């Protein structure tokens, strides 16, 4: 069976997007999208963990028996989260101060686990790594978009504090969209997370229907 990298990229970023199509990882999606910058940070940290976990599970896939696969997957995800946490704390301390809040939350995300089960446990190392990277980037994209919608309506800014996350060179991203105090507070509170996510899912499906693809059903594509 030939592996279609094109398919993996399209699935991860759009067609089978973790948040907008599969509706997985809703806990960090709701909690961490109060601003575009937070969404971006959470998404990138998750992408790193997903790529590493997919790689490891694919490498060991012939040794993991069906009966114990779930505890092994959880072990691998949790270990990777801890690796990232420790290494960033030690050697990327400035970044850790910003992202540190998000990292332990990745363990509670079921998207990495879903990709391990439906993809990495059956596919070779390189496609699995690619799947982890692009599913992670798709997650990042969704979280950044949801965060952007909530931030613009909720606080009137876009990418506030981006320079803390990405470095001073990205100061230009920080925009004041609405006048100060014009924000609708509800959008940064939990209900705003559901509203923004729901509306973006509708928008994605409308785009898909208009493109003649029909509504993409959630579920794992086989490659």
């Amino acid at each position, binding site marked *: 069976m030939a592996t279609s990298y094109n398919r993996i990229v399209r699935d991860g970023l759009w067609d089978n997007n973790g948040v907008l199509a599969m509706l997985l990882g809703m806990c960090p999606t709701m909690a*961490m999208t109060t601003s575009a910058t937070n969404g971006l940070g959470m998404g990138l940290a998750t992408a790193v963990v997903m790529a590493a976990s997919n790689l490891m599970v694919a490498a060991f896939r012939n040794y993991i*028996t069906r009966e*114990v696969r779930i505890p092994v997957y959880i072990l691998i995800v949790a270990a990777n989260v801890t690796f990232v946490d*420790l290494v960033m704390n030690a050697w990327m301390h400035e970044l850790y101060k910003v992202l540190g*809040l998000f990292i332990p939350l990745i363990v509670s995300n079921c998207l990495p686990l879903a990709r391990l089960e439906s993809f990495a446990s059956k596919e070779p190392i390189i496609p699995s790594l690619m799947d982890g990277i692009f599913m992670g980037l798709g997650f990042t994209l969704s979280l950044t978009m949801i965060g952007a919608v909530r931030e613009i309506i909720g606080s009137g800014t876009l990418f506030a504090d981006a320079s803390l996350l990405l470095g001073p060179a990205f100061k230009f991203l920080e925009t004041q969209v609405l006048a100060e105090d014009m924000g609708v507070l509800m959008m940064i509170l939990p209900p705003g997370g559901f509203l923004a996510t729901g509306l973006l899912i509708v928008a994605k499906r409308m785009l898909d229907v208009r493109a003649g693809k029909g509504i993409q059903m959630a579920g794992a594509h086989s490659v």
Partner: protein
Amino acid sequence: MKQGALTHAFILGVFCLGFGLALALTDLATKDAIAARAMEDRQSSLGQVIPTAIHDNNPVLDRLTMQDANGREITVYRALKGGKVTGVAYEVFGTGYAGQMKFMLGVDDQGRALGVRVLSHKETPGLGDKIEVKKGDWILQFTGLSLGNPPVDKWKVKKDGGRFDQFTGATITPRGAVAAIRGGLEFFAKHQAQLLGVN
């Protein structure tokens, strides 16, 4: 062919052992660096709450261990100039929306706050984290204030009839922060003699 439970247990055990070992090695490799970073963080937050002009010693090294009102052991860093204590800094704790918040509070020899900084917290990013100096100057307003200024019953957020602003969408965080800082100043008032005494 059905494999026995022992085989599965063995496989799971090997993975646990392997990852446990890898985690232990990572911990060993990063432990010193993480401790060094924590020390640097402490030094730099100490530098922000004790102006360099008021001391000629190294406050990180001149410390006392005392007990706060809750029986918790806290470390007090002291700034000395010419053999006299000119200010002290210590950690104060508050309860926020998502658990404990830790602050470093600097107090001069008159009981006025020299400055407050957040050391750690778990507040909601975008709402409660405005207590960080990086994300807002809310925490700076405490500089120069003391228990009599404003009066003790005004050491609350505005919603509770005090004088400090709460944040839009987050009242619990600033409420906890104000209470923690007030508690810190009360600690100073109670232990003034011990804190300022030179031994």
